[in-house]
């Protein structure tokens, strides 16, 4: 210790000091010369909303995550939209539409006098240019990691073999767009309200190379357009994205065709940590954030914040995979699981206010929801008896649950797991818990059918049964792995037939029947609960209309003085 420096070693220190100071001053002035303040006049009313993650990009076509859509939704519109506060379709960029008898030709009457943010005109050519762009994706653009909603809704692309729902787009005149489909689909026209199908400016997309997506290392690099120049028709337009300060600024579109936005600026501040979002709201740094922890809701209300609880439009289920554990292929065993689970207690103890126990795989606001389905009330004794009958008294199951995640339908995975595994044990089922990080193996393993019994859920994209049960059981080799079941293929076929039925009444009847069978003869999984996601704002925020699709538009929002 104490490496004593000989006192004689230092040079003329004063001289060096002067030189250093001079250099620093020089550096500072030269830097200041090239760093001019870019500040403009102060911009009036600004609302700051806390976002949970950085958006991937601002081109909604390549996105499938809520954080991206929350931002692009303010800047862009599709042909159809959703009525505020509901999941019902309403006119947006199309004023009206009609379909042909067989459901394959859709004619849209477009709104006139609408301009994109870059000043170019919105017309039928622009609409068809967008459809053609989507359909003609190549290379990485065809990947589900990018064009998820296109693949989900329209199937394939121009250049691959998978059949596509999309056939062509015609422009009889500049205010009419005619969409030809290869077959009828229950998804129409609701799916066109998805954020991914927002109509963007063809001029801007061309200028900034919107389709230039490249695979690089372990991910994709997006185009100049998607990062800096998103151009739509909405009430807000893109201002800037400060990546180092993690904030996105949108400004009011002064030339908006409809009711103009109240706010001058809308800022999204990215705060990944849930508790930090809450503290930031408490200290006045942000004006609101989405999905407050259910445990915080009453506290936030007590402190004078507005907590709005949306109508539930999601489902939490206890998934069952028939892939590896043969016992789970026995309907009696699955019924025993359904009997063992105490949904009422789960909802009361682990779910936020307003949550409801679920009977079916989607909420009753969606079409084809029969009230008279087979129900399996909580009955541990009956569960035990069923297991005995099936010869599985000593049933042991792997029960999977995710860590490092909360979802609107699953606010507290650990709490839910604790409650359910207690229920199962009570019915004499041995539970082997398996927990994995959500992104660290949980999702990928569950999707391969590796998890025997698991927690998962879904938030609806739009009001269609297909968006729920079509996604769940349309394939026999996914998380539920219904392949070995005698009815697995049959269920998938029935779902496909219902989706392709052109007559709405007949279609609804088909879905109703499928729902009945799902509860009486299939029971591929156990619906647990619909839980309403909440959104919290400071008391100054007025005019926020919540959406069951969690698709709020901030244009009508204003800040009280």
């Amino acid at each position, binding site marked *: *210790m*104490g*490496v*004593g*420096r000989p*006192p004689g070693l230092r040079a003329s220190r004063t001289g060096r000091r002067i030189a250093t100071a001079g250099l620093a001053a020089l550096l500072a002035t030269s*830097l*200041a010369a*090239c*760093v*001019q303040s870019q*500040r*403009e006049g102060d*911009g009036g009313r600004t609302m*700051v909303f806390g976002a949970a993650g*950085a*958006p*991937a*990009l601002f081109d909604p076509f390549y996105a*499938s*995550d809520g954080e991206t859509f929350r931002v692009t939704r303010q800047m862009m519109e599709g042909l159809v939209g959703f009525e505020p506060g509901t999941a019902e379709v309403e006119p947006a960029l199309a004023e009206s539409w009609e379909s042909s008898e067989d459901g394959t030709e859709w004619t849209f009457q477009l709104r006139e006098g609408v301009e994109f943010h870059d000043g170019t005109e919105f017309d039928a050519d622009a609409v068809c240019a967008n459809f053609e762009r989507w359909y003609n994706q190549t290379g*990485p653009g065809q*990947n*589900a*990691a990018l064009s998820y909603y296109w693949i989900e809704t329209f199937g394939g692309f121009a250049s691959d073999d998978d059949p596509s729902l999309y056939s062509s787009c015609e422009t009889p005149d500049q205010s009419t767009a005619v969409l030809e489909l290869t077959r009828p689909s229950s998804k129409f026209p609701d799916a066109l309200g998805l954020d991914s199908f927002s109509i963007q400016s063809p001029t801007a997309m061309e200028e900034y190379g919107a389709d230039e997506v490249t*695979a*690089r*290392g*372990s*991910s*994709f*690099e997006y185009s100049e357009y998607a*990062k800096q120049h998103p151009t739509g028709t909405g009430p807000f337009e893109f201002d800037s994205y400060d*990546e*180092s*300060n*993690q*904030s996105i*600024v949108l400004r009011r579109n002064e030339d908006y065709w409809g009711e103009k936005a109240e706010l001058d600026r809308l800022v999204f*501040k*990215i*705060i*990944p*940590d849930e508790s*930090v979002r809450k*503290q*930031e709201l*408490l*200290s*006045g*740094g942000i004006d609101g954030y989405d999905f407050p922890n259910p445990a915080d809701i009453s506290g936030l209300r007590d402190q004078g914040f507005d907590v709005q609880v949306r109508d539930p439009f999601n489902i939490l289920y206890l998934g069952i995979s028939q892939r590896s554990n043969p016992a789970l292929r026995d309907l009696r065993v699955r019924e025993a699981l359904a009997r063992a689970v105490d949904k009422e207690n789960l909802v009361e103890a682990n779910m936020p206010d307003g949550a409801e126990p679920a009977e079916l795989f989607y909420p009753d606001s969606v079409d084809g929801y029969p009230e008279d389905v087979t129900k399996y009330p909580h009955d541990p004794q009956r569960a035990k008896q069923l297991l005995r009958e099936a010869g599985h008294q000593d049933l042991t199951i792997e029960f999977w649950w995710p860590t*490092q995640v909360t979802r609107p339908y699953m606010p507290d995975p650990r709490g839910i797991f604790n409650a359910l595994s207690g229920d199962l044990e009570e019915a004499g089922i041995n539970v082997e818990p398996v927990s994995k*990080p959500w*992104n*660290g*193996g949980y999702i*990928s393993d569950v*999707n*391969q059918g590796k998890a025997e019994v698991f927690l*998962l859920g879904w938030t609806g994209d739009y009001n269609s049964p297909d968006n729920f049960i079509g996604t769940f059981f349309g394939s026999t080799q996914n998380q539920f792995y219904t392949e070995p079941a005698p009815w697995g293929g049959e269920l998938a076929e029935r779902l496909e037939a219902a989706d392709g039925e052109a007559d709405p009444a007949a279609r609804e009847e088909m879905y109703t029947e499928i729902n009945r069978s799902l509860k009486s003869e299939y029971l591929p999984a156990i619906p647990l609960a619909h839980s309403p996601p909440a959104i919290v704002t400071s008391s100054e925020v007025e005019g926020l209309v919540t959406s069951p699709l969690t698709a709020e538009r901030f244009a009508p929002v204003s800040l009280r003085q």
Partner: protein
Amino acid sequence: MLRYTVRRLGQLVIVAVVLSILLFGWLRALPGGPVSALLGERATEESRAQLVEQLGLNQPLHVQYWKFVQRAVTGDFGVSTGVQPGTPAMEVFLQRMPATLELSVLALLLAVVVGVPLGYFAGRRQGGWLDNLSITWSLIGVAVPVFFLAFLLKYVFAIELGALPASGRQEVSIDATHATGFYVLDGMLTGEWDAAWNAFLHLLLPAAALSTIPFAVIFRITRASVLDVLEEDFVRTARSKGLGARVIRGRHVLRNAMLPVVTTIGLQTGALLSGAVLTEQVFNITGIGQALSLGFQRQDYAVLQVVILATAMVYVLVNLVVDLTYAAIDPRLRER
């Protein structure tokens, strides 16, 4: 000296290579991976396979490693998947580095400004009340988990008192120009003094939380050095020459005690980075600490690779500079 420097630099390269191999293997051993991160809960087997193919993740590991090295030497570490999706990982690192540097420098500054004088006076009056008090403080400082202290400070000063901002680097409603990425510096350079002040206020609480451990170390080293130096021959000589107490203190004791202190500051780089991961999380500071914890949560290979490699390199480089400085002063060290 030149040969010593060259040898040390050579060793640096070896560490970098070994680290990059370890890192590469480690990232591939992590559960999950970029494919799950990109596809999320909507993944199907088919889309997974397609993505693995497109990203070249189905090639043999050594091929992937070689490609990684080839790209890495040009500064290309791939694109972020979770922290800042779509942005090149190197860019993410460069964007976030200034925030962490700013925070660490201020924390270190706080630690020095408080720790050195306290250590000096405590050392001069060994066993006095100031000595005992500061020793107790430094011991408790080490025993308190950094993130808990950060929460405590935030709760009291930001939420209860509302005196300081609760999180972030700068008020987003301040339309500030960010040229260098160092917000305080930016504000000063452009003359946007309100922006600079605002950024500085945002730094205070996290820096205070982060400074406790360097403070404890610097305080103790200063104190110990002062004790050591007071015993040294040249101080006794100076005394016997009849030099005034103030001259002795100022010219000899303090200056000679500063040397080990300066080394210790170099040493604190690692501790500061560890602490930054936690503090940045609590205060939502968009630095590399937050990038790391987000990178882990969201399986962002590219960002983890850059950040770990770069921080380790910075750490090693800082130590190299300190060692070289030492070697320049004391030739004996070169032989070891």
